[in-house]
């Protein structure tokens, strides 16, 4: 659905996107995960034809982003980081104006507007002014707006930035729903690990303008070498038994715990506990955060950007 080849965006003193090559498949939720300033938004802006690449190319729905911008625009919907609906207008009016901008035929205009409102759960608030909406509702309206013209691809730039946890989960529900009901490809950027993990079929970890890892969340985590089991036991033969299982990669002691590296703790722990008399046992699985730290040597920053649009973004 999207083919990116050697895409570069260079500013005077900064290379925001550095030789990016990437394929995004049809009907997947693809996550671009990275810290602030990693080049996520710049990439999205180039794919949406709002920004010209310094070099390289990309096609969206088969159309070239530099040479066929009009075709690309008809193929995509986009929700920006900062609010982009007009808060003086009602939800319905916002959608109506965009239905004109996207040349929806008069005969289906009304029906399609009702349809997308229903999809994002805003039908009962459609005649209220957007300024009375909560942050999550407003962003859902913008998703509805992006869907009006039945695009093939939807870009969501930090779709849950600044939302409270409950609104965030609601938002995830609607994003999944739109992939199912509208048969659409979603590319979202996020710096929330949990979001990437819960929502995305595949994740591209982006750092300093480059993709440094690309896989499913499960595989990315598996790449770290599996789960860690901790067992507290008095049994003298515990170590011997544990070493007898070939799913145990590594065995160490730490603070009186026996610490085992295993492939899949949910299956391996019960097997171990049948043989070893334990006083206490627990396990941890690697998170995407561990993956990110391994890849970049840094923790992803959870703080939102301090830019103007964030400070003025009235999302909750």
């Amino acid at each position, binding site marked *: 659905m999207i083919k990116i080849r050697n895409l570069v965006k260079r500013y005077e003193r900064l290379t925001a996107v550095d030789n990016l090559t990437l394929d995004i498949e049809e009907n997947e939720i693809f996550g671009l995960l990275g810290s602030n300033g990693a080049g996520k938004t710049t990439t999205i*802006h180039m794919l*949406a*034809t*709002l*920004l010209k690449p310094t070099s390289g190319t990309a096609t969206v729905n088969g159309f070239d982003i530099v040479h066929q911008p*009009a075709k690309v*625009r*008809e193929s*995509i919907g*986009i929700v*920006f*980081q*900062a*609010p*982009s*609906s*007009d808060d*003086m*207008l009602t939800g319905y*009016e916002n959608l109506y*104006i*965009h239905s*004109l*901008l*996207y*040349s929806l035929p008069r005969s289906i205009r009304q029906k399609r507007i009702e349809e997308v409102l229903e999809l994002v759960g805003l039908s009962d608030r459609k005649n209220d002014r957007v300024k009375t909406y909560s942050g999550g509702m407003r962003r859902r309206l*913008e998703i509805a*707006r992006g869907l009006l013209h039945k695009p093939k691809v939807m870009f969501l730039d930090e779709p849950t930035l600044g939302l409270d946890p409950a609104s965030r989960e609601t938002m995830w529900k609607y994003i999944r729903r739109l992939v199912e009901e509208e048969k659409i490809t979603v590319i979202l950027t996020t710096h929330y690990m949990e979001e990437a993990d819960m929502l995305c079929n595949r994740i591209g970890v982006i750092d300093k303008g480059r993709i440094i890892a690309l896989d499913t969340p499960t595989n990315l985590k598996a790449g770290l070498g599996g789960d860690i089991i901790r067992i507290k036991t008095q049994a003298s033969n515990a170590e011997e038994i544990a070493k007898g299982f070939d799913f145990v990669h590594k065995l160490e002691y730490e603070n009186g715990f026996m610490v085992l590296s295993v492939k899949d703790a949910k299956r391996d722990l019960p097997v171990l506990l049948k043989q070893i008399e334990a006083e206490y046992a627990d396990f941890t699985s690697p998170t995407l955060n561990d993956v990110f730290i391994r890849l970049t040597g840094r923790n992803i920053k959870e703080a939102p950007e301090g830019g*103007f*649009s964030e400070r*003025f973004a009235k999302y909750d």
Partner: protein
Amino acid sequence: MPNTTDLQVHLAKLYAIWLREFKVFLREKSRLVASTFTPILWLFVIGSGIGSTVSVPSAPDLDYQKFIFPGIISMSIIFTSVFYGSYIIWDRKFDFLKSVMVAPVSRGTVFVGKTLGGMTNSLIQASILLVIGASIGISFNPVFILQAVAVILLLSFGLTSLGLALGSYMYSLEGFQMIVSFVVFPLFFLSGALFPLDNLPAWLSVLTAIDPATYGVNALRTTILDIESNNLAADLAILTAYTAALGIFGVYSFRRMKAV
């Protein structure tokens, strides 16, 4: 020639841009009230205050308040149009413009739609002032009104274009203040809205001649006050040329404006 459907699609997009501007205008009542109040204040306070001590040499039987009435209408157009245009800085800050620019709509269409919005605003405000004019003894006839509306739309188109063009180069809200100080007030003061242009020092004459609003003020004065001495045809020709030039400058600036 585009066929009918193409034209309809194009006009629908233009209508969409204008509709948004118009609805926002109607709902921002405080802005409408405030920007109508200021010219009224000028008309009555400056008009009566200064009018009590001066008279206009070239038209001794015309009182000062009536003399500046067309100037005050121009003032309202200058402020409304340039402010309206440069409001584009805000639109860009708040990502609304991005959502329009990512739609399959040409920059030219967005520009014209916004200009029509500015002209609508100016016309509504000027109409309110024209009605108030009746209370200071301005008499109207249908021909004057039609002429005045034409001048108002022409001037407003040019100045909204100017505001949009300047706004498209500005990336911070401080730019808005620059436009107020270095564009809006000079346009207003140099237009002859408040004084006759007959006996000015040479340096000031040159500046007033450069100001496009001068020709709007002059044309309005001719139509509204029915002063024969002014050359309406010449004023309209120069104003039209200015407006066309500003329109072209505006479209050019808008096309090269960065979307993000």
